[in-house]
């Protein structure tokens, strides 16, 4: 490994391309931590937003109107406001009310910035996921649902065994789009000082004045991460393909 680090030092000395994140141990560690934080943020938001989408779509099919109205309101709120402003709103507005008093008399926020970012971005993407899954559910013919009813399935059983497996397949292309968008939007967490990749890059370029190099690194990593995710989703789409449902 040391040979690689040394090569980057040589690169800097001969060409001026300054990638401290390779040859400087301190920068290397903080950039890698930022990278891991980004991955953690993306993974948490992807998982939570899918759960929100599935539950929301289930509730939207409920016969209890107040629940449907509540989900509709949630979707309007999160879909019609920019994610950056949502992050500020949650972290600075809501976060300042949700605090705990410590024994030494200090007042600190109960929910840290990373958790706020996960909550906020998951609900942001989750709002779209509800609509995506709902469209998938509506694409399943009523007659298929009726056949399940005639076999004695409950509404929940139909959702789990018939509607969801079919709706999921129908929704996959749109879902992939939205989740890609979510992965990229996690960089907004920078604004509330979540030490993710862009945030640590900013620290690094402030110290080393190597903005163009770091911007390139960040972009290339995003291209790679999203590319990998799309590859996995395409494979999943292919693996779930069944004859005769036109996917």
């Amino acid at each position: 490994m040391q040979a690689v680090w040394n090569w980057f030092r040589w690169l800097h000395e001969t060409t001026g391309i300054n990638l401290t994140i390779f040859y400087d141990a301190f920068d290397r560690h903080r950039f890698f931590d930022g990278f891991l934080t980004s991955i953690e943020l993306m993974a948490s938001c992807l998982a939570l937003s899918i759960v929100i989408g599935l539950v929301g779509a289930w509730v939207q099919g409920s016969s209890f109107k107040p629940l449907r109205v509540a989900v509709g309101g949630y979707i309007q709120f999160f879909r019609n406001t920019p994610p950056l402003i949502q992050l500020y709103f949650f972290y600075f507005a809501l976060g300042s009310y949700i605090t705990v008093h410590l024994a030494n008399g200090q007042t600190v926020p109960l929910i840290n910035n990373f958790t706020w970012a996960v909550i906020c971005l998951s609900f942001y993407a989750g709002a779209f996921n509800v609509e995506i899954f709902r469209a998938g559910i509506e694409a399943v013919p009523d007659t298929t649902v009726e056949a399940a009813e005639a076999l004695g399935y409950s509404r929940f059983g139909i959702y789990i065994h018939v509607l969801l497996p079919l709706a999921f397949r129908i929704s996959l292309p749109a879902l992939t789009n939205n989740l890609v968008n979510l992965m990229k939007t996690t960089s907004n967490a920078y604004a509330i000082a979540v030490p993710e990749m862009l945030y640590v890059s900013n620290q690094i370029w402030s110290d080393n004045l190597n903005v163009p190099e770091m911007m390139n690194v960040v972009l290339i990593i995003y291209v790679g991460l999203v590319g990998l995710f799309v590859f996995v989703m395409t494979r999943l789409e292919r693996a779930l393909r069944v004859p005769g449902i036109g996917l």
Partner: protein
Amino acid sequence: MAWTPDQPLIQIKDVHKSFGAVEVLKGISFDVAKSEVICVIGPSGSGKSTLLRCINALVPIDRGSIMVEGQEVHDPKLDKLALRRKVGMVFQQYNLFPHRTAQQNIMMAPLHVLKQDRHEVEARARRLLKKVRLEGKENAYPGELSGGQQQRVAIARSLAMNPDVMLFDEVTAALDPETVKEVLVTIRELAEEGMTCIIVTHEMGFAREVAGHIYFTDRGVIVEHGPPAEFFVKARDPRTRQFLSQIL
């Protein structure tokens, strides 16, 4: 009054059903005894399909009574699962679950709804596929089967629940003429084994062969009924005669 097996399996009395302002069923009454096969015929829009869907509570009725083995279907406290275990239904468009193979389609409800043992259910699914002459198609998806094959899987799927009565809703109407026969043969075998069947059909030749009793419905009422030998030869009502002359 408790139901005993010597009473009719299904007792339909004065059933009324409207969709909005349109009254689709205007007082239908008839009984179906155990092992009886009845065919319901009549022009499109005469309420035949609606009647079938009322029997297994897919559609609630407005007035009247439908008793299945003594259980009132027109009852807000109805245990739909208990009813649907007794009543199997096969649809015009097969309505198989496209994401599951033929065998899985047959196994799903016994596993998920009745929570039966997997090995037992699997063995039964194989027997049923054999019975509907689809051995070797266990792992085919519905999209890989012809209409007639799909419909036979759908019949096997209903039979897997061990129903006491089978409802067939124009099950050959969407099929090619060549594949109609294979489905009808399957239904006839079931009837011969003593399965109670209510068959809505436009296949007059089949109805004549398989039915013990034929009901002709038009505009929500039973116009005429009788055993096939009488019904086809000595229809009295002008509406029945006109319908038969158009179709035969």
